[in-house]
């Protein structure tokens, strides 16, 4: 429906109605945003506050650990785009065929999505444990293993990525909802033209999923940029900063009392988020109708 003008006499209650939301938004989103940008150009810790121009940003780009954090954050994002989302799309398409038992399977696939990062981290800490962990126990059966997965710089980052790479519930749900809205006639027409099932999905389903795939990538990327709890509990960013993320890097600066510096990193996180949003929305033309 088309929104109408505010009827006479309603202006006051409408303003009162929006006020609490506007206050929450101002106090917890707008004001922090202003503090973030402003203090990123300052040396700030506790009571001292002096504007220092671009100093924080200069220190940041000269710190090799910052670049490690950037590379790791991008690595985790890449895992999302290359493994997590495509895997979810394939499973979503398969489940949409409504083979026997698909409901149960959908539930099983979705459950990991509602489990917290902290709980996951503990489960995986036990899984990767070098002496008692299931991974090494299993590997020792075939005579391999013995690695300390989370404390070895060559494996730690991949071990962390493996904890979330296969959590595909979100993508599966969105893909299935979108497929349900595709008219059956499209497939029937393709079938009479002799198209195989695989061809039907490549030519009809995938193009129509463009919007949804873009949305899933976007949501995942926003999660990856803010990735914190799993890394924090599993490795604290180590060994030798090989798993550190931007969020963790900013958090360390905050703990050190270098608030201005932490906020320069925070501004960078927001900026990367903004660039990713604009890029993905453009690439997948999100918002435009698929049909």
């Amino acid at each position, binding site marked *: *429906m088309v*929104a*109408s003008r*505010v*009827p006479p006499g*309603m202006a006051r209650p*409408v303003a009162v*109605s*929006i006020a*609490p*939301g506007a206050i*929450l*938004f101002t*106090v*917890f*989103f707008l*004001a*922090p945003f202003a503090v973030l940008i402003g*203090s990123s150009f300052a040396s700030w810790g506790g009571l001292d506050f002096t504007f220092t121009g671009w100093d924080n940003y200069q220190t940041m780009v000269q710190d090799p650990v910052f670049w490690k954090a950037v590379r790791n954050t991008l690595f985790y994002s890449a895992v999302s785009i290359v493994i997590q989302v495509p895997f979810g799309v394939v499973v979503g398409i398969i489940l949409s065929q409504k083979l026997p038992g698909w409901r149960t399977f959908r539930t099983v696939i*979705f*459950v*990991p999505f*509602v*489990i*917290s*990062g*902290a*709980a*996951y981290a*503990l*489960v*995986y*800490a*036990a*899984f990767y*444990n070098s002496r008692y962990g*299931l991974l090494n126990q299993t590997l020792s059966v075939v005579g391999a293993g013995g690695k300390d997965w989370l404390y070895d710089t060559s494996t730690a980052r991949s071990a962390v990525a493996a*904890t979330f790479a*296969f*959590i595909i519930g*979100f993508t599966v*749900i969105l893909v299935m*909802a979108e497929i349900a809205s595709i008219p059956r006639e499209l497939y029937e027409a393709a079938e009479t033209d002799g198209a195989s099932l695989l061809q039907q999905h490549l030519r009809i389903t995938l193009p129509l999923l463009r*919007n949804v795939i873009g949305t899933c990538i976007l*949501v995942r990327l926003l999660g990856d*940029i*803010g990735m*914190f*709890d799993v890394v*924090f*509990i599993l490795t604290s960013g180590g060994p030798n900063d090989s798993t550190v993320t931007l969020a963790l890097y*900013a*958090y360390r600066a*905050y703990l050190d009392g270098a*608030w201005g510096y932490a*906020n320069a990193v*925070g501004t*960078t*996180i927001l900026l990367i*988020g903004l660039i990713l949003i604009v890029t993905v929305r453009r690439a997948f033309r999100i918002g435009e109708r698929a049909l």
Partner: protein
Amino acid sequence: MLSSFKTADQFTSGSGFWPSPFTDSGYIDAFTQVRLHEYVANTLLYAVGGTTGALTVALLAAYPLARYRFRGSGSITAAFSLALAVPLVGLATPEFFIMRELGLFNSRPGMVIFYAALMFPLSFVVLRSFLASLPPELEEAAHVDGAGYFAILRTIVLPLSRPALATVAVVSFVLIWNEFFFANLLTVSQRNQNVQLALAGFKSQFGSNVTGSLAGATLVMIVPVILFLLLQRQVIAGLTAGATK
């Protein structure tokens, strides 16, 4: 390793890997040494309080912005919705600073208010698009009959929004229950911390008490899992609506 959920199950039930006497003690450790139930009480307060607050504030704001067009209504809607796309971890230090200045740092009421704010954008976006799809005739009739704005909101809009409210409530509850980053940032005393921090404590306090931490993890993950299994439709609808609107 198809799904990590199965791994969790195998770990906690497959006691064959560890000496069996230790398996039960993990759960006892969770309550006696870590006092998990106290963290659970806090988390319930945050999840229920934050969700209720967010839903109330969001419904109040979403209704007029879905119904009426006025100067600034477009920008307000855009601003509230944009907050959903901000990677909030970037705002860590400012949020800490503001909470401290308001006297809300490391306090239970403070965390309830903070979580209400955190869940406000998602609730707003879902509720607004839901309300915009409702026909306005009932409200208009009530208006002609002389009902005031808040009376219409309470007696007509609120009951009609029930399905959308239920959806957002479940998703918001689970998100607050699972929240780690800001709980870690904004609380320091154990008596104000949530279950996710209790889990992190398991790792540092016990060092190598694997069964204890796995028992804790199981207890903490069981709440959202059960909620999801019972209210699967709402969770799915809520996530779909939140992501695509």
